[in-house]
């Protein structure tokens, strides 16, 4: 039985979140987002001309996401450079953000999003999506809504919000299942749902409900962060 979380949180409690906008002055838009000690920064450049030319789309603008974990972000040094994992996360982040964007009028251009994970303790892709969504809004890219993401886990038979590394590695009972998911803020649509492990369809529905609730809280923080820019 899984009764207590290693960091003493409640089962539906998110780690302490931190969000800040404008952390990279050189970029058109940038943001930092942290779930506890998982920290991601995102910077947005563009829309700008896309090179090489064969990647250009004459019908609509292109979104290009690059996710990277810095070599000092994990206890064991990560070899720098793209990996199979980072390529996959870049792609799913792109798909998670695209439904919220309105870049069809920027033909032949690209919006570049660079996500760097400064410190990793699970849910890095969710922190990355949250940061990227803030950064895109900050860069003035036309969007219909914001995107919020959270990772929901099933540990043994308990639904748990915002996993940490220790919980991801839980082995007893049914083991651990990690489900990162992203929601669009207004329409409530799901733009990312990945599943790593085993789960029954009933439990999955429960997990999605928990994710929806958690994402509302994240959205409130994102909104607050953007509205506070003026006071700086």
């Amino acid at each position: 039985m899984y009764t207590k979380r290693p960091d003493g949180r409640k089962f539906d409690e998110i780690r302490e979140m931190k969000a800040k906008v404008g952390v990279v002055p050189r970029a058109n838009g940038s943001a930092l987002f942290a779930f506890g000690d998982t920290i991601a920064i995102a910077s947005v450049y563009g829309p700008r001309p896309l090179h090489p030319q064969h990647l250009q789309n004459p019908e609509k603008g292109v979104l290009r996401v690059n996710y990277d974990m810095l070599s000092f972000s994990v206890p064991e040094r990560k070899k720098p450079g793209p990996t199979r994992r980072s390529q996959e996360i870049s792609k799913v982040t792109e798909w998670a953000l695209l439904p919220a964007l309105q870049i069809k009028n920027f033909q032949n251009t690209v919006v570049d999003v660079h996500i760097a994970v400064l410190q990793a303790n699970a849910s890095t892709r969710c922190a990355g999506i949250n940061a990227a969504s803030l950064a895109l809004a900050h860069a003035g890219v036309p969007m219909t809504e914001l995107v919020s993401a959270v990772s929901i886990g099933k540990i043994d038979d308990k639904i748990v919000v915002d996993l940490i590394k220790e919980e991801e590695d839980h082995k007893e009972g049914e083991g651990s299942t990690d489900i990162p998911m992203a929601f669009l803020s207004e329409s409530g649509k799901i733009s990312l749902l990945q599943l790593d492990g085993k789960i029954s369809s009933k439990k999955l529905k429960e997990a999605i409900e928990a994710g929806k609730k958690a994402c509302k809280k994240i959205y409130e923080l994102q909104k607050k962060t953007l509205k506070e820019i003026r006071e700086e």
Partner: protein
Amino acid sequence: MAKSQNKTETKKAQKEKREIVVPGEKIASEEDYLPGEWTKKEGNSIIALRFGLADKSGRLVKIIPLSGIYMPRKGNIVIGRVIDITFNGWIIDIDSPYQAFLPITECSKFVNKNDLSECYDIGDTIVAKVLNVKRKGIDLTTKGRNLGKLEEGMVIQINSNKVPRVIGKEGSMINLIKKESDCEIIVGQNGVIWIKGPKVENELFAQKAILFVTEKSYIEGLTEKTKEWFEKSKNKIEKKNKEE
């Protein structure tokens, strides 16, 4: 009398209603509003399509962007850099999503068709006017007063959304800065500013003033504040000179 009162009231109402909105947020839910720039109508409510200040002037609701890349409009004066020369014109980088094109026919000077670089060479900074914006590509012209190549001076870059604050009402702010720093200044709508003064010190002083304005852009009555700032920094400079 009644009319003027009415006017001040509407002005007040406008000021109260300008607040920051995030994408997807409902700005107005009453039926009698119309969607303006960067907004859309969904049912009875008006939804923000980008991050910025919501402005309700009359029935029209629009968003004034606070950030983001420069989008060229017809008639804008911009400052750009020549990045390439083709057989019939120059390609100019004006810090917008698309590169701009300046055709030979829109150059004010006589151009030797065999060597376009005699007129504008790669790397030159030029002031130009946006002639028209097509679906893809921007056309420029340098025909007109004060347009053409910029020599000497320095170029700084600011957020293009803050250009209206740097210029001020009917140019009040920019004229103040010009007067106080004794510099020639050209502000491009794309956020590129060219400064030329008698000495480097003057240019740096003008740059400092412009950066002050962009940092404090959300304050009301900014021209007055800038005047105060000029007096303060002038005193400082005098003190420094005396000490030396």
